[in-house]
C-alpha cells in the first residue's frame, strides 16, 4: 500500500454533469432514491452474519490493518501523538504478529511529530493522515482551508481528511462543494508531482437523510475523492451501518459507471470488534473482495483497536484477558 497507487483509469469517461450548477443538481437529484426502512433492514440483516473461528481471526487482523488510529483533541500534545504512533506500529507488545494499523490520524500541526515518531518506532510505512479544511466544522474561508491543506501536505501528510461545507450542500449549492473538493485535491499536490490521498468527510449526521448521503457520495466521487468518509466523530450521529451501506452502494455503482474505484471510511462510534466485523461483512457482501484491503476501506477509530486486540488474544489463548492486557495509549 502506498500513496502512489492510483485507481485504475476510467473505463468510461465520467459524465459531464458539472458544467453548470443546474446540470449538477439535476444529475444528483436524478439518482435513484434510498428507502430508509429497507436500507436499515438490510444493514441490520448483514449484522446478523455469524463470523467465527478462521473467518473471525482473519477479520480481526484485517480490521486492525484498516484502522486510522485517531486522536483529534484540542488537548493533543506531541507526547500523546508519539505514544499513539508507537501503538500504531506495535499494537500488541506481547504479540509481534499483530498487524500494524493503516494510518495515524491527527490535526495538521501534529503531522511532522507523527512522521518522526513513526520513523523512530520503526514503522515509516504507516501513513499519517491529517484532518484539514477547518476540521470539524469546515466554517472558514476557502483560502484558509486550502492553506490548512497545503501546510499539512508540506509537513509530510500522506492523506488529507477534508470536511465538506455542509452549509453549501444543504442549501443546494452543490457546485460550490464540488469546486471546493477539486481545489483541495489540487492543494494535496506535492512538488514532485505526487499527491496526498484525499478523503472527503460528509458529516452524515448533519446531512441527515440517506438521499443526501447518496447524492453527496456521487458529488465527492465526481470531484475526485480517493475516499469518502462518513463523519468527523464530533457530532451526535457518526458512522452507522445504514449510512455506511449507502456509501458502499454508491462507490460500487460509481466504479460500474466510470471504472474508478473509491475507498470508504466509516468513522466515529465504532468501538468493538463485533461492530467492526459487521462493517467488514457489509463490505464483503456489497463490494466483495476488491474493497477488502486497507487501500480501499478504513476505520476511523481510537478505542476500537484495544477491543480488537483483546479479541485477538482470546482467539490465541482461549481466554479473555482484560483492559490491563492491552496498552492505554
Amino acid at each position, binding site marked *: 500500500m502506498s500513496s502512489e497507487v492510483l485507481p485504475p483509469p476510467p473505463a468510461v469517461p465520467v459524465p459531464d454533469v458539472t458544467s453548470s450548477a443546474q446540470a449538477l443538481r439535476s444529475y444528483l437529484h436524478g439518482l*435513484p432514491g434510498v428507502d430508509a426502512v429497507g436500507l436499515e433492514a438490510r444493514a441490520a440483516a448483514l449484522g446478523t452474519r455469524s463470523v467465527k473461528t478462521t*473467518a473471525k481471526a482473519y477479520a480481526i487482523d484485517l480490521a486492525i490493518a484498516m484502522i486510522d488510529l485517531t486522536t483529534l483533541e484540542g488537548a493533543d500534545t506531541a507526547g500523546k501523538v508519539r505514544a499513539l504512533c508507537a501503538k500504531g506500529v506495535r499494537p500488541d507488545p506481547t504479540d509481534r504478529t499483530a498487524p500494524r494499523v493503516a494510518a495515524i490520524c491527527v490535526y495538521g500541526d501534529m503531522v511532522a511529530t507523527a512522521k518522526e515518531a513513526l520513523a523512530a518506532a520503526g514503522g515509516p510505512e504507516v501513513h499519517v493522515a491529517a484532518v484539514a479544511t477547518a476540521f470539524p466544522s469546515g466554517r472558514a474561508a476557502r483560502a484558509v482551508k486550502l492553506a490548512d491543506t497545503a501546510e499539512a501536505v508540506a509537513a509530510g501528510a500522506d492523506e488529507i481528511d477534508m470536511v465538506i461545507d455542509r452549509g453549501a450542500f444543504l442549501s443546494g449549492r452543490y457546485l460550490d462543494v464540488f469546486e471546493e473538493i477539486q481545489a483541495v485535491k489540487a492543494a494535496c499536490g506535492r512538488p514532485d508531482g505526487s499527491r496526498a490521498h484525499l478523503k472527503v468527510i460528509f458529516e452524515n449526521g448533519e446531512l441527515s437523510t440517506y438521499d443526501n448521503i447518496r447524492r453527496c457520495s456521487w458529488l465527492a466521487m465526481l470531484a475526485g475523492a480517493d475516499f469518502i468518509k462518513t463523519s468527523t466523530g464530533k457530532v451526535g450521529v457518526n458512522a452507522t451501518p445504514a449510512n455506511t451501506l449507502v456509501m458502499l452502494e454508491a462507490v460500487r455503482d460509481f466504479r460500474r459507471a466510470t471504472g474508478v474505484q473509491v475507498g470508504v471510511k466509516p468513522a466515529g462510534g465504532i468501538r468493538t470488534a463485533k461492530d467492526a466485523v459487521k462493517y467488514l461483512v457489509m463490505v464483503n457482501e456489497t463490494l466483495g473482495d476488491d474493497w477488502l484491503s486497507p487501500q480501499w476501506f478504513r476505520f476511523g477509530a481510537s478505542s476500537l483497536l484495544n477491543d480488537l486486540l483483546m479479541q485477538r488474544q482470546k482467539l490465541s489463548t482461549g481466554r479473555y484477558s482484560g483492559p490491563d492486557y492491552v496498552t492505554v495509549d
Partner: protein
Amino acid sequence: MAHQKFAYAPAPESRAVVELAPSYGLFIDGEFAEAADGRVFKSVSPSSEEVLAEVARAGEADVDRAVRAARKAFTKWSALPGAERGKYLFRIARVLQERARELAVLESLDNGKPIRETRDVDLPLVAAHFFYYAGWADKLEYAGCGPNPRPLGVAGQVIPWNFPLLMLAWKVAPALAAGNTVVLKPAETTPLSALFFADVCRQAGLPRGVVNILTGYGDAGAALVAHEGVDKVAFTGSTEVGKAIARTVAGSRKKVTLELGGKAANIVFDDAPVDQAVEGIVNGIFFNQGHVCCAGSRLLVQESVQEEVLDALKRRMATLRVGDPLDKNTDIGAINSAEQLARITALAEAGEAEGAERWAPPCELPRSGYWFAPTLFTGVTQAHRIAREEIFGPVLSVLTFRTPAEAVEKANNTPYGLSAGIWTEKGSRILAVASRLRAGVVWANTFNKFDPTSPFGGYKESGYGREGGRHGLAAYLAEPGEAAGGRGEGEGELDR
C-alpha cells in the same frame, strides 16, 4: 493479507437442543396414542434425507376419535370466561418463547428452511400470534363481530409444510381465543413441530381435548374436513385441494376459510429505490426457498430501468448462500421434498422450452438432499406457464411493462390474488396503483412483512376468508343470530 479471501467459517446451530424421540403418536384428548390401525410414516430431513422420526399416520377412526375429544372439551372450554382462556394462551406464548431455540432448530431440521429464518422470523411471529389473540380472548365483544359473540364449535384445520409452526399459530390461536376447540392436521412432510406444540400445550396446562394433533396424509385431512362433528374448516395449501374442500363442505352448515395459491406481482417502477427494491425482490421470491403462497414470483419491471434492475438483481443473487439450513449464514435452504423438487424442476424446464431465458448464479449444491439454485427467467410473457402457474420454489419470472396502467393490467391478469408489491418513491403512485390491484395484501416498498394484527387472505383462486387481526377472529365466531355449533343438538347428533 489483501489477497486472502474473507470466507465465512461454517457456523452451524447445535442440534443438541432438540431431543427427538424415535417415534411419535397422535395427540388426542391430551394423550399421545398410536393410530387405530397402527400405521406409521417417516419424517425425513430434506437437507440430508436423514430419517428424523417415525410418526403415526391417522386414519378415519383416529379423526373420529379426535373430533369427539374436541367436541367434549368444547363444552367446558367455551364456557370459560374469556380472561381464563386468555391466560392459557399467554402461557402457551411464553412457553413458545422459552423453547424458541429448540423449536427453531427442529423446524429447520424437518422443513429444510434456514435457521436464520426460523430463528428470526418464524418463531417470533408464532409467539406474537399467541400473544395477540390471547389479548382478544376477553374482549370478543369489542371485535366488531356483533353483541355476545359465540364460538363455532370444533375447528378442523389443515396446514401446509412451508411454515409448519407459523401456520399452526395462525389457525390455533384465534380459534382458541374465540372459544373453539381444534383438531389440526399438519402436512405429512413436516409433522414434528406440531407434535412439539402438543407438548407445549401440555406444559401450559391446556385442558385435555382443546387441541388435538393428527399427523397423516391427505386422506386424514379429507376425513377431517368431511367429519360431521366439525363446525369450521380452515385450510391453507394448494388451490387444487382447496377446491376439493370447498366441494366437500358445500351445502353443509360448516364455515370455511381457504388460503390458497398465489402468483404475486412485484411491480418496480422507474423511480424505485433500486437497492432496496432488489432486496425486496430477493426477499419476495427467495425467502423460505420461494415456498411462500404470497411470494413475489412475477417481477414486473418498467422497461426503462429493466437493465439496471436486472444487473443489480443478478449481482445480489450471486451473494445468496445456499446450503446447510442449520448454518447461521445460510440464506437459502433445501426444497421441502423430492416431489416438490420435481415440480419445480418440471416448471423451470417448461420455462426454457417456451423460450424464456434462464439464469442462476454459480453455486455449488450439496450432494444429498433436495436442492434448487435460485433461478431467474427473463423474457417471460403472460403467455408463459411460468408466468401463470404457481411454482412454489426459488424461481422468479421477469416481465416488463411501459406504463402504470399496463402494470396494473398485467398484475391483475392471473387467476390468483393473494399479494402484490409496489416499488416507487412516489407516494401518490403507491396509493393509485394499490387501490387498483386485486390482491389481499399490497406491500409498498417492502415485501413479505407479517404481523398478527394485519389480516391476510386472497382474491379469486387464492381463496376466501382472512386470517390475522380482528378479521381472523371473525372467522371463528358465529354471526349474530346464527346458532353457534357444538351446543345442544350438535353434540346430541354426534353421540347417537
